[in-house]
């Protein structure tokens, strides 16, 4: 059978091995994964320890010290209302990481399950699920999220709901595609012919192999969710003030982009580093879980 998936007739030894039985390098030798984990762990640690580390109360105003550059008293300067930027950054990590991680869970679970079902069983189930996916996919993420948050009113719960409603679709598409590819590979075919029931095949043989793609995507999805919050902040639909949050910090700094440009850079860098860490984890996981994708 010729499919887009690539069978390796020239390297039969590798292909014949079942994924679970593959000899793998231990995870700690995977540089991407380790680097990513270190970055993300540091971010999480900073977020958790924010109350200890932050030199000031993140919402405490000091209008006499507004818009100051970095100094000994305020390492990263102060914002328009004289609040300490470093403290806001640390406390902001709590909000953004929380929203980023939490907002991904429901779409991940729902999308993965539906995608696996559609890809594995095919037929009408596949057609119906994929048509629903197509409908949601037709609307740009931002369009639906903005419209939904607008309808539901700004706030954290609206953001969760809007993201959940919209972003399961991507997981569904990715997982379905992977399942279709996996299903046609020899070891799965063999397992099916060998009489294993569907749940076992899906869970034991296909699952671990395809989930890595979903996890990899989840890492960039977290970044995407943070960007959604940032953009909602730009449009004035973000997190309720005065809560410190990277998105609203960037949105607040937007007024000063042409004068105090670094104000938008500081929270931006936090987003970038987090995104980098998560992407590295994603890469590392791909290495670890489906090494045939990598050299």
């Amino acid at each position: 059978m010729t499919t887009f998936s690539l069978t390796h007739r020239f390297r039969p030894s590798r292909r014949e091995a079942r994924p679970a039985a593959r000899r793998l390098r231990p995870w700690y030798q995977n540089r991407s994964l380790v680097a990513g984990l270190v970055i993300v762990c540091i971010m999480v640690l900073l977020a958790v320890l924010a109350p200890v580390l932050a030199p000031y109360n993140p919402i405490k105003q000091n209008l006499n010290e507004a818009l100051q550059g970095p100094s000994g008293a305020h390492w990263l300067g102060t914002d328009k209302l004289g609040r300490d930027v470093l403290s806001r950054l640390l406390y902001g990590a709590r909000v953004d990481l929380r929203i980023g991680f939490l907002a991904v869970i429901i779409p991940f679970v729902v999308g993965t399950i539906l995608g696996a079902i559609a890809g594995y069983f095919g037929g009408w189930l596949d057609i119906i699920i994929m048509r629903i996916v197509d409908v949601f996919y037709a609307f740009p993420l931002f369009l639906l999220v903005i419209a939904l948050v607008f309808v539901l009113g700004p706030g954290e719960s609206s953001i969760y709901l809007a993201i959940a409603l919209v972003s399961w679709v991507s997981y569904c598409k990715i997982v379905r595609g992977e399942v279709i590819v996996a299903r046609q590979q020899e070891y799965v075919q063999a397992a099916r012919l060998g009489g294993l029931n569907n749940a076992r095949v899906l869970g034991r043989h296909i699952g671990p192999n395809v989930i890595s793609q979903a996890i990899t995507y989840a890492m960039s999805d977290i970044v995407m969710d943070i960007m959604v919050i940032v953009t909602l902040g730009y449009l004035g639909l973000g997190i309720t003030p005065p809560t410190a949050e990277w998105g609203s910090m960037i949105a607040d700094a937007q007024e000063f982009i042409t004068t105090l440009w670094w104000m938008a850079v500081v929270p931006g860098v936090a987003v970038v580093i987090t995104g980098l860490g998560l992407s590295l984890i994603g890469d590392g996981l791909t290495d670890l879980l489906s090494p045939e994708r990598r050299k």
Partner: protein
Amino acid sequence: MNRKLVSMVTVGALAVSGAALSGCASSSTKSGGASKSAGAPVHGGNLTIARAQDAKSMNNILTFDNSSIFIFEQIMEPLFTVTADGKATKPLLATGYKVSADKKTYTINLRKGVKFSTGKEMTSADVKFSIDQDTKHASTGWGFINSAIQQVQAAGKYTVVIKLKHAWAPLIADLALFSNAIVPNNYDGKTMAEFYQAPVGTGPFKWGQWKRGEYLKLVANTGYWQKGKPYLDSVTWNVVPDSNTRKLQVQGGQADIDEYPDWSTFKSLGTGSNVIAKTFPSTELDYLAFNEKKKPFQDVHVRRAISAMIDRSAINKAVLFGNGTPANSLLMPGVPFYQKSTPGIMKNDALAKKELAASSVPKGFSTTLLIPSGDASKLSTAQIIQNDLQQYNIKVTIKQLDPTANHNAQQNMQYDMGLSAWTMDIPDPDEWTSFAIDPDGGAKSAYTNYRSAEAIKLNRQAQQSVDHSTRAELYNQLQDVVAHDAPFAFLYYAPYAYGVSDKVQNFNVTPLGNYPLTDVWKSK
């Protein structure tokens, strides 16, 4: 006066931003670029104005938003216009008027030889038609402003007689409003909708082209009755929603005027470029409204206490970057009869504590503050107020709604406290006072439900007295009463801000927010 619709005024009247010390000339901050010597006016050139929002409609009697008003004012002119200080009127298409002894009949003489841009001469028939059209649409447009008018008569080709139902001090001010601008009789045979697709007037500019969402262009009316004017060949309003982009366009020379610069970068506008950051005295009052239908705001002590907790100079510094003035009165310095000595409550710790102790909630309470989303200034103001009140154990949650929902919530009295602003459209305080303190005017006292028999009585007397000093006395008393009752915490008066290229000469904004472009010219 029927004020049912005056509510809509706020939407339109939320002009740029504004402060204003009475009658002072425009001030400008210049931090860079040499000012080109003005010299004698030069003809020619296109003026490009970068603005946040597109116009909505050219219908001058039904449209309430400034982005439309600023444009159609260049096309259609009223009989009278506002003086540069915004406090009085002067004849424009009229040459003068006489008032009868009973103050109920006004005889207005029209300027001769004024032509519409179609070439047809303007006569009393056009004037009667225009004012009648406005009055007729009182329920959906600005016509409420004409509610004292009983009849308009075209007495002679160049004479119009207006009969009033009762003495009405603001009449000439009302006639100076853009909704009473003169259009051709019977819309030159067109329907109203057709006519406003490409409106015709006597103004310095005539209709050009409108690409909705992109730009609107007007071209010079070569037959304009003020000979030799306008100087410009054309004016283009470009829609540039992002404030940073507008600023960069003016600095880069792509636009001549930034209609709506951010206060946060206002001073830096002129840095290293040929742009002048200009402020003009305005009639803008920003205030915190208390909904007296919600507890505990019906308690005057609570309102006074909160008014005394707010640090207005901090708001002025953080939000307006020092460009505004803390507000002390219901009226604005740019409005006739503003009383400088009105004892509006300012930040006062002792007073705040005293009033709170005397109130129904001496130990503090929790409440919400409603603001429209996407407004950086209001967001900062709200956070400062939140912080100020926190120190007296009043916990404020900021609630953001999109602008329309925010407005609906205020109208339906579904809020606790809210941030609002007002600018005047006519040079008479009545427009605002009737809206703000007369609960029977339809706006429930600017949606606060404030009801003071004394204030209502003073306002009605002031409406009907034509004598200037009597009105002044009545408005002084009114301002004192409102300052004491604190239905609003007056926050600040903000000036209008514009970023103007130094090539643009004679660009001026009246305190009512209009910027006539008749005399504007561009140096080479």
